[in-house]
């Protein structure tokens, strides 16, 4: 696989959220506004890239039996870096993301990429794979944040977009998150079914 394809794989074809159905909790919880969505997406991207690079660099030194605890320690280190950084420079975002910032440690996407990809491939490919998966996740959170903030508050990034629009408050509450996610997943599976039908004809 070429380097560009490695990167693109995580964005669309194997999007971690919509296709593999991983990392659902932070996707739903931090998509109430676009600003939180950007923060969460970039934080998770940083952790995925960092842990992918380190895991790939140490993949020959780690004995097979204790690999999972080793990966978890590497991931926890990067999460702590993000936590301290955001706490110092972006306190508002730090507060808004709340417990979902330390919970990046148990975000399945990060461990999944470490185990499936980085532990078997070189450093450069793992770096690109981390960026692809991280941006794929960011894309998913942004899409949900766009729909939910737009409909739920009538704003985007905090700025009003449609004058005189009466916001649908439920969209920023938990039920709106579940509903948006369900409908988006249904849409993507409808697209897949349709393209399959088109090929068999």
């Amino acid at each position, binding site marked *: 696989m070429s380097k560009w394809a490695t990167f693109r794989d995580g964005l669309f074809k194997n999007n971690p959220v919509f296709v593999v159905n991983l990392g*659902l909790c932070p996707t739903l919880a931090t998509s109430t506004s676009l600003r939180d969505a950007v923060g969460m997406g970039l934080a998770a991207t940083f952790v995925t890239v960092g842990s992918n690079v380190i895991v790939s660099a140490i993949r020959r030194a780690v004995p097979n039996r204790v690999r999972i*605890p080793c990966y978890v320690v590497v991931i926890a280190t990067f999460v702590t870096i993000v936590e301290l950084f955001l706490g110092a420079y972006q306190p508002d975002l730090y507060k808004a993301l709340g417990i979902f910032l330390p919970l990046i440690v148990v975000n399945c996407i990060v461990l999944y990429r470490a185990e499936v990809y980085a532990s078997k491939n070189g450093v450069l490919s793992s770096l690109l794979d981390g960026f692809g998966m991280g941006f794929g996740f960011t894309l998913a959170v942004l899409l949900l944040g766009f729909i939910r903030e737009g409909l739920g508050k009538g704003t985007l990034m905090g700025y009003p977009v449609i004058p005189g629009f009466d916001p649908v408050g439920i969209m920023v509450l938990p039920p709106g998150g579940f509903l948006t996610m369900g409908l988006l997943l249904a849409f993507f599976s409808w697209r897949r079914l349709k393209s399959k039908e088109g090929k068999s004809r």
Partner: protein
Amino acid sequence: MFAIVIGMVFVNNFVFARFLGLCPYMGLTKEMSSAIGMGMAVIFVMTIASIATYPLYSYFLLPFGVERVLRTASFILVIAALVQFIEMLLQKVNPALYKAMGIYLPIITTNCTILGVTVLNIDTFVKDGKAQPGGLVGSAVQGFSAGVGFTLAMILMSSVRERMEMADIPKPLRGIPIAFITAALMSMAFLGFSGLIKQ
């Protein structure tokens, strides 16, 4: 104490209000039996993890001033070691119980509900860098009731999904999408509990 229980089971239910533990919620609710097994295992591990991490934070990390740097890393390691230990202990002491919930124990380590509840305990019971009195009991109760709330959500969802197997659902909606829409309706119902306690 009562407010904590009601709050964690109904008002701030982990699945419906906080979006925690969605992976097992979507993955293990196809059958009632697996939903109950996972729920019980989560209650068990959550309570023990709460009891273990609270003293770790307030008596080791806080006095040495490393609580911000080491919280996440030390908690996840303690939880991983604890789950492994519980698994070995159950296998020896109570094989019947091990059979019922043993297969769910390894997946619990990377379940965000467990780490979530331990971090939440710290947020609730440690104020301004000082452990509050009664924090240990409070953490244990909070951990236990969060597990009960999670189990309640699992059982509700699995009983609906067992019936949905028979229904004629449009093809693109089958499986996870319809489960999400069902969850949306349930969490709307759970919003009705939000007046029960003062936030």
